[in-house]
């Protein structure tokens, strides 16, 4: 039962094969059994069972949604009313949110059952889940490896069958890279497609929530519930949400795929390149035309990102000051001491590093050279994508230059860690939707294929991913010990 897809579980619930309460109990038991993975920060068993009971009533009454009764995990970045929302930080270890994020509201309204809050890099800053105050997460495919980050807990939980689906957020690859490392399907929607209200901000102009699931079909079901305009988020886009499931089976004949040559250069593991080429060949068989495209400004994506994201985070994290909520140091001598120690005693190294970088980049005299320049680069990168996507329907390439690396392997070298996101970051700078789907293995560890689409073309992306999954079984692989 634990390795079924959301679509299968929804059918089972309707067929009366099992109830949502039974399903939920099963997952809660597995979460206990595999607690060593450290995928969850908080498990909300009592609430989950209450939600499951309500879901069973809805199912019986025939008023159920596709997601009604389906267990999901919420990344601990989404505020959940009455439940600890830590964002992976000691700063918010005592923070019980008094309200629900819009995404949480929407999934609740659809009848999804929240099993708990999944582990993550502190304030979503990290590519390995190792910056979490609650400790690192083990990759179910190889427990001495990282699950990726920042949505590492969500990815590991889906891969290990500790939930049917999970939410993630993606600022520079935080859905796609852990999805790739854990062999699951992850979708980062177009910026503005999913409300950011109640999603604790890291870099506001880049952050976007999305689903992490076993299949593209499941991602369509979850995105359907998560997407839509929210008047509480001025950057959410007022545009109708299409039916993501109805077009999944459309044939791919005539699909134009672009391969950015910059994605296949130096730095890419050769075996990963082979996996990607094989996947692209599979698409050729499905009727797609493939051509090479060039996006010369992609090489500037990482430096631009590491100015813009820290700049925004330096302001976004100012509200954590020990005054109104969260951690407050003991016996502050004065106001300055209160600020310095409350923040100093809680924020981890990576968070401090990014706040410092961002503060520096915005300082008088440096603003033009860093922030403004980075914004110009951002525009150039968007333009590169626009011209490429004028020629082709989707772009394909690797998600990450390597497969999951070892726990502790890169923690001492931030630059190496940052380079882990080299193929994902540009997509956030452009605000485009992109997916990661399982496409093979290297050294027994999953490899993700990245598919990038045009603005608001999530339906097309899901269709392209789904047809591949109809013809391959990479997404059906289950890590040993988690069958």
């Amino acid at each position, binding site marked *: 039962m634990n390795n079924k897809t959301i679509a299968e579980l929804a059918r089972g619930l309707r067929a009366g094969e099992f109830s949502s309460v039974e399903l939920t109990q099963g997952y809660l038991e597995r979460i206990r059994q595999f607690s060593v993975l450290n995928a969850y920060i908080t498990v909300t068993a009592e609430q989950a069972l209450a939600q499951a009971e309500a879901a069973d009533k809805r199912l019986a009454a025939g008023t159920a949604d596709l997601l009604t009764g389906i267990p999901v995990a919420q990344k601990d970045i989404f505020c959940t009313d009455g439940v600890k929302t830590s964002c992976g930080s000691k700063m*918010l270890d005592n923070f019980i949110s008094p*309200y629900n994020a819009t995404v949480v509201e929407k999934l609740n309204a659809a009848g999804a059952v929240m099993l708990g809050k999944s582990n993550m890099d502190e304030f979503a800053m990290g590519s390995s889940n190792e910056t979490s105050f609650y400790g690192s997460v083990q990759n179910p495919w190889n427990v001495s490896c990282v699950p990726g980050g920042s949505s590492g807990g969500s990815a590991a939980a889906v891969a290990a069958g500790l939930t049917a689906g999970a939410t993630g957020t993606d600022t520079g690859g935080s859905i796609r890279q852990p999805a790739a490392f854990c062999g699951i399907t992850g979708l980062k929607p177009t910026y503005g497609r999913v409300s950011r*209200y109640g999603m604790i*901000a890291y870099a*506001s102009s880049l952050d976007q929530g999305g689903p992490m699931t076993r299949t593209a079909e499941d991602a369509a079901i979850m995105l359907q519930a998560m997407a839509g305009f929210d008047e509480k988020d001025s950057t959410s886009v007022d545009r109708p949400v299409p039916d993501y499931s109805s077009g999944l089976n459309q044939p791919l004949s005539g699909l134009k795929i672009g391969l950015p040559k910059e994605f296949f250069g130096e730095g890419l593991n050769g075996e990963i390149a082979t996996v990607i080429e094989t996947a692209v060949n599979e698409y050729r068989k499905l009727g797609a035309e493939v051509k090479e495209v060039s996006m010369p400004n992609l090489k500037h994506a990482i430096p631009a990102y590491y100015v813009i994201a820290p700049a925004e985070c330096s302001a976004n994290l100012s509200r954590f000051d020990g005054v*109104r909520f969260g951690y407050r140091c003991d016996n502050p001598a004065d106001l300055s001491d209160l600020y310095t120690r409350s923040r100093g005693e809680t924020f981890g190294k990576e968070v401090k590093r990014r706040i410092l970088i961002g503060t520096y980049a915005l*300082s*008088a005299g440096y603003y033009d050279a860093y922030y403004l320049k980075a914004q110009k680069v951002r525009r150039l990168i968007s333009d590169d994508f626009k011209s490429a996507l004028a020629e082709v329907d989707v772009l394909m390439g690797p998600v990450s230059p390597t497969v999951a690396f070892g726990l502790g392997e890169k923690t001492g070298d931030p630059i190496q860690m940052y380079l882990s996101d080299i193929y994902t970051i540009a997509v956030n700078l452009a605000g485009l939707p992109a997916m990661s789907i399982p496409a093979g293995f290297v050294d027994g560890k999953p490899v993700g294929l990245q598919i990038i689409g045009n603005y608001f073309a999530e339906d097309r992306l899901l269709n392209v991913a789904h047809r591949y999954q109809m013809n391959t079984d990479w997404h059906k692989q289950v890590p040993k010990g988690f069958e």
Partner: protein
Amino acid sequence: MNSQWEVVIGLEIHAQLATKSKIFSGASTAYGAEPNTQACAVDLGLPGVLPVLNQEAVRMAVKFGLAIEAEIAPYSVFARKNYFYPDLPKGYQISQFELPIVGNGHLDIDLDGATKRIGVTRAHLEEDAGKSLHEDFHGLTGIDLNRAGTPLLEIVSEPDMRSAKEAVAYMRKLHELVRYLEICDGNMQEGSFRCDANVSVRPRGQAEFGTRAEIKNINSFRFVEKAINHEIERQIDLIESGGKVVQETRLYDANKDETRSMRGKEEANDYRYFPDPDLLPVEITEAFKDEVRATLPELPDAKKRRFIEQYGQDDESAATLTSSRQLADYYEALVEASGGEAKICTNWVTGDVLGALNKAGLEIGQCPVDAERLAGLLQRIADDTISGKIAKQVFEAMWQGQETADQIIESQGLKQITDTGAIEAIIDKIIADNPGQVEQYLGGKDKVFGFFVGQVMKEMQGKANPAEVNKILKTKLKR
């Protein structure tokens, strides 16, 4: 003022916009609620919350911009101004920096019979901070976030003013304008209209500005004048004694009538402004401007010109009567309802009505005698039912109660006596009773005439028609 020095002043005025809810949240902006009862999740800066712009604040800013004939930016941007303070929940204030909503405009001030144009550099939208309460917490500080997120329009003038008097005239003019536009209640005690002044001095004839000091948060017209004058004196004294003015922020202490240093430039914050990624740029279309323009009321300058022309007022009366929209409305309602002479209405409103309001510490909106009731009184003067003097007595009674002028005249028997027979009889009696005064008058002492008038009025409880009294007395006391 020392004539060797020229004073240069620019003002930054924070006008609290009269929206019902805050600039980025749905919480109420009403003043005076229990601490922290009007602060929602957004105002508290909880993790995950996002600002949503209140369109009414935008409308008000545009209205202001149109009224000062300013450029309205087709595209303006909110920026984050970063600094830590306990009453600033997010650790940054959402303001506008490089691209404000209102650009260059101007305001004309009248001083000593001359008109001077003061440039307005810009006006931008921003959110207010909360309040830190240092009393009542036994050495601790309390934070009230009710005010956090209240919309402000910061109006920045050019350094065009050359005296404290000009600065006050500009501030008053602006105060009058925002109230005319109904975008700010102008309540200075509650902090709805606050002023920071940039003051510098330079040797007369020098082109470059001197080093300026900024005086923060001056909350009354009187204090603005005093604070600026004090600061001018301080700077001149400093320079003349060989010192140098340093660029700094100073706080005015009204109790001691002095300014003192708050922080110098070297300690000044680097606010690290950058565009707020949570908010879209504000786009103003021509159609929106036209829509707002159509809601502009007649503005103070135009109204004043019209009052001078239409009602034959002098400059001073017109200025007084158009100093607020409600007062001008009161006046025009009075002219209309009384159907009488505008001049009498002018005298009554500028004299008796404003005098009584001042004495009672009331605004025209709180005037116990509305224009219609007052018109009833003025009609009785016009038709000679009562004299102007009795009218003042009736007005006082109207102020105290709800009765009409006619009811009071009737119940107190104040109707003027125009019966010449009755007046003659009294006059004869008084002439007979005061032979000495008669002799004095006939001997050439004109002043004594007033004595007779007074006696007659006294005898008739002021109800005699004064013109009749004069006429009959003149005949009887013919020299």
